[in-house]
């Protein structure tokens, strides 16, 4: 196991090189890239499991160059192992799926490029999770950004893809800049490059500490996609090929969450309650706005991207609740809240990658991403439909599926927080609990819409009517992920058992959860507060379901099939409820958030009472783009414009600058001596 981490990186590098060698043979390039990726992911996954099972941490050097003193080190701590386990669990099925998906959706001329990008991105994410020093971390972080941007721009003839990749690069680099500044601020006071020294939590204090915290919050917040740093996410995720979108949503944003855990929550000393409250606020706002924006999207992949923002919000909410608890030395409560957040990292990765793979199959089968063009897909794509339904139920937080478990844990943390912390501050807990309830109910509405409009009733377009099911190699990974959704939902103890080694490794936490396979229990002041045994409930639900089936079949009469009543007219796809109509009531109720602008145009021939065509546009206001990033961008451009004065193209002026600078430096150094 000791060599697993560098071995995985070497496999990725070799694979990337080999893929490049087959740049002219697309099929070979694809096979090489994906087989290599599967090998490396499997290796990482095994290593992560061994650490989670209580094995020794894996530490070592990637590279030690004595002459230059360059050392790249890694260390797989239990926290890294948790994120790597999630990574492996998603990366493996996604790679299998990609074999069929890439063959169909990626042009031969770009196959090698995508294959290399795929491996470089995954390898970089692995290294981010295990990096033990700042150089390795930032190098991998940057590589991850660049590889992802390249993959987002796969269809670079589309202006939207180019724009998405550009926006992603800009936002990510603002984030990386903040990280660099943060690490410099920490490194300046210690002189070390090792993350364990820098993040021991004793380097900074006072306002300096708050400042460093803010830098890291922006740096990691951009990657995690939390509002207000999210603007790149709904552009970049849909633009990438679907299996890459799955990885971006399931794995890439967890790199941001990992950073928030490692640095903001546990790397800068005991968090203050204000930090925790800020996290709770950001998490709640991300969750609620994420799902509200998701509800009104009619582009399937964009909708899923907004829902990723929602789920990142839930993770950050749990983390924030834990940080507040830490600041009040409520160790048990902090452990529970962090467990909720980490469990949601896993659960979200599983169901969101399932949904993105399902979306990929749908897009491949119909050639469009618009919900309004789908309909009746369940007949043409029965398996994709079934797996998508499981994913939709999981993300809606229904019991017996994994989404419910982490939401349950988050609620527990919030309610116990209310009972165990005193003062006005505790009112934040039930308030964010109520908003979390609203979020999950809106998510349920959202995914009833997605599944119902896409897979049920009559096809709304010829493309949907002639959709084709994906090959088995693409269905099997979805089946696996759907199975995981159910399995993790019925046996939540497995997840908490695996977390049992992770949580005590973090400063200030200890393991307080009583564990067995099927039941999770929370305690308040020693007494049982609540417990959950989904397997028991599954047995009850199945019995009741069985009773219902028997009851309705008792009369033994055969079913008669008749056409749906079309109100006297002919029933067609045009009379069906559309996706826009489904979310319209919520759009009107929350119009303070959406601030929609709509335009209706009626085309008539004879009488205005008999229009032959009605055209309808509705656009929701891009609040953050317009009111946050707009002024920011104008400000930056304005300053840049003002600075043109300095760079006027005159050689004499430039020489004068150099002279002034040299004199200033000499004066400064001399003054120091």
């Amino acid at each position: 196991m000791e060599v697993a981490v560098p071995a995985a990186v070497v496999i990725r590098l070799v694979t990337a090189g080999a893929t490049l060698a087959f740049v002219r043979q697309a099929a070979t390039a694809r096979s090489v890239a994906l087989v290599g990726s599967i090998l490396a992911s499997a290796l990482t996954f095994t290593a992560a499991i061994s650490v989670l099972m209580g094995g020794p941490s894996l530490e070592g050097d990637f590279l030690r160059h004595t002459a230059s003193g360059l050392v790249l080190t890694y260390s797989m701590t239990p926290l890294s192992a948790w994120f790597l386990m999630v990574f492996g669990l998603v990366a493996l099925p996604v790679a299998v799926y990609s074999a069929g998906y890439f063959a169909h959706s990626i042009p031969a001329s770009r196959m090698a490029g995508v294959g290399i990008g795929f491996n470089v991105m995954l390898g970089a994410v692995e290294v981010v999770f295990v990096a033990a020093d700042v150089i390795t971390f930032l190098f991998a972080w940057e590589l991850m950004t660049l590889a992802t941007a390249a993959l987002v721009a796969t269809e670079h003839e589309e202006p939207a893809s180019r724009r998405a990749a550009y926006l992603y690069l800009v936002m990510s680099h603002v984030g990386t800049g903040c990280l660099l500044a943060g690490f410099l601020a920490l490194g300046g006071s210690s002189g070390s490059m090792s993350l364990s020294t820098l993040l021991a939590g004793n380097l900074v204090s006072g306002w300096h500490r708050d400042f460093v915290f803010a830098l890291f919050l922006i740096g990691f917040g951009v990657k995690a996609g939390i509002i207000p740093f999210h603007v790149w996410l709904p552009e970049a995720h849909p633009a990438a090929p679907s299996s890459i979108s799955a990885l971006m949503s399931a794995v890439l944003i967890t790199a941001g969450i990992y950073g928030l855990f490692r640095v903001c929550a546990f790397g800068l000393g005991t968090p203050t309650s204000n930090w925790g409250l800020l996290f709770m606020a950001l998490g709640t706002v991300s969750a609620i706005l994420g799902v509200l924006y998701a509800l009104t999207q009619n582009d399937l992949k964009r909708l899923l991207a907004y829902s990723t923002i929602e789920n990142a919000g839930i993770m950050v909410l749990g983390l924030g609740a834990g940080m507040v608890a830490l600041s009040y030395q409520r160790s048990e409560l902090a452990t529970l809240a962090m467990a909720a957040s980490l469990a949601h990292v896993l659960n979200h990765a599983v169901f969101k990658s399932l949904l993105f793979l399902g979306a990929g199959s749908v897009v491949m089968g119909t050639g469009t991403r618009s919900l309004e063009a789908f309909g009746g897909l369940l007949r043409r794509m029965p398996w994709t439909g079934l797996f998508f339904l499981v994913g939709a139920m999981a993300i809606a937080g229904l019991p017996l599926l994994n989404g419910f478990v982490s939401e349950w844990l988050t609620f527990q943390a919030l309610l116990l927080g209310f009972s165990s912390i005193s003062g006005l501050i505790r009112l934040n807990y039930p308030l964010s609990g109520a908003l979390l309830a609203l979020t999950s109910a809106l998510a349920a509405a959202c995914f009833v819409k997605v599944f119902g409009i896409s897979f049920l009733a009559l096809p709304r377009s010829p493309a949907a009517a002639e959709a084709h099911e994906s090959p088995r190699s693409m269905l099997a990974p979805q089946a696996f992920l759907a199975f995981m959704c159910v399995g993790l939902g019925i046996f939540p103890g497995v997840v908490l058992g695996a977390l049992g080694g992770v949580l005590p490794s973090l400063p200030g936490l200890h393991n307080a959860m009583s564990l067995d396979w099927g039941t999770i229990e929370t305690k308040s002041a020693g007494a049982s507060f609540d417990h959950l045994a989904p397997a028991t409930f599954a047995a009850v639900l199945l019995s009741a379901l069985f009773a219902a089936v028997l009851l309705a079949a008792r009369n033994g009469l055969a079913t008669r099939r008749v056409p749906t009543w079309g109100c006297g007219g002919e029933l067609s796809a045009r009379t069906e409820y559309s996706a826009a109509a489904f979310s319209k009531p919520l759009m009107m109720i929350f119009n303070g958030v959406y601030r929609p602008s709509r335009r209706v145009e009626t085309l008539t021939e004879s009488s205005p009472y008999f229009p032959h065509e009605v055209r309808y546009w509705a656009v929701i206001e891009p609040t953050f783009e317009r009111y946050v990033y707009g002024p920011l961008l104008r400000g930056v451009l304005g300053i840049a414009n003002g600075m043109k004065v300095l760079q006027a193209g005159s050689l004499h002026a430039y020489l004068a600058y150099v002279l002034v600078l040299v004199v200033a430096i000499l004066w400064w150094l001399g003054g120091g001596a």
Partner: protein
Amino acid sequence: MDMVLSALQAFAFAALQAALLLAVAPLLKTVIKKMKARLQNRQGPPLLQGYYDLAKLLRKEPVRSETASWIYVAGPRAYFGAVVAATTLVPVLVAGAPMESAGGILLLVGALTFARFALATAALDTGSAFGGMGASRDMTIAALAEPALMLGLFTSALGAGSLNLGELVRNLIVHGVTFHPSDVLAFAGLFIIVIAETGRIPVDNPATHLELTMIHEAMVLEYAGPDLALVEWASAVKELLYLTLLVDLFVPFGLALTAEPVSVFVALVVWLLKVFVLAVAVTITESANAKLRLFRVPELVSISLGLAFLALAIRFL
């Protein structure tokens, strides 16, 4: 061996309690209809009408739409199954829920969300605009009601120190219910939510088939025969379940602490009385109010949210 035995016991208890709720629910529906009719100087249906309707629907030939898929068939069954499974999480006669080992309030709310998800999804399957309209409105109202429901439940649960309903009512009975003004606020808030969740006036009108005002009825408009029987029956059970939940949280007196036949019988009578009183309240609300426009419902629900939050604040600050 002991574990198997106690599991079997719990299942038998759950089955009995579910059967009781299934038996009483159609009566509750008809009683409310009857009282409403009397308030309007009408005769109203006979008290057993609910049972006749179900028996008739169950005997009928199943008629289904040509466009519908298996989801359409699975929907009512999942709805029925989830609602009946939810009943096993709530104490009815005995101070303990049969399946309280499975989970508490959060699982109960989750099970009811499961039921709603199943029915709303199935409603989209026939291609009729009614189904989509009903599903859209039902999910909208449920989403708005959810935070108020949760906050109201949290207030009661935090007062009793447990989120498990069995544990909760036992704590309330053992420690004695101390009357607190916050209970009134929390009850009022939850009552509004119960009205909204069970499709009663002023949120929805169970007696209408007018396309502009239907919510629940629009969702199940295409169903017929045994499928419809399952939906109607489960909806009635759901209403009874919500009313039982209200009495459990606020007036848990009379619940049997042991399984002796006498105390269980007393508990049955007390439970029926308490539910009847709430049914009268529902009837009066239905008769004295006009149905709200869909876009006025958020105001009503936000009143409930405000009440629940006030209850929480005055109780714990």
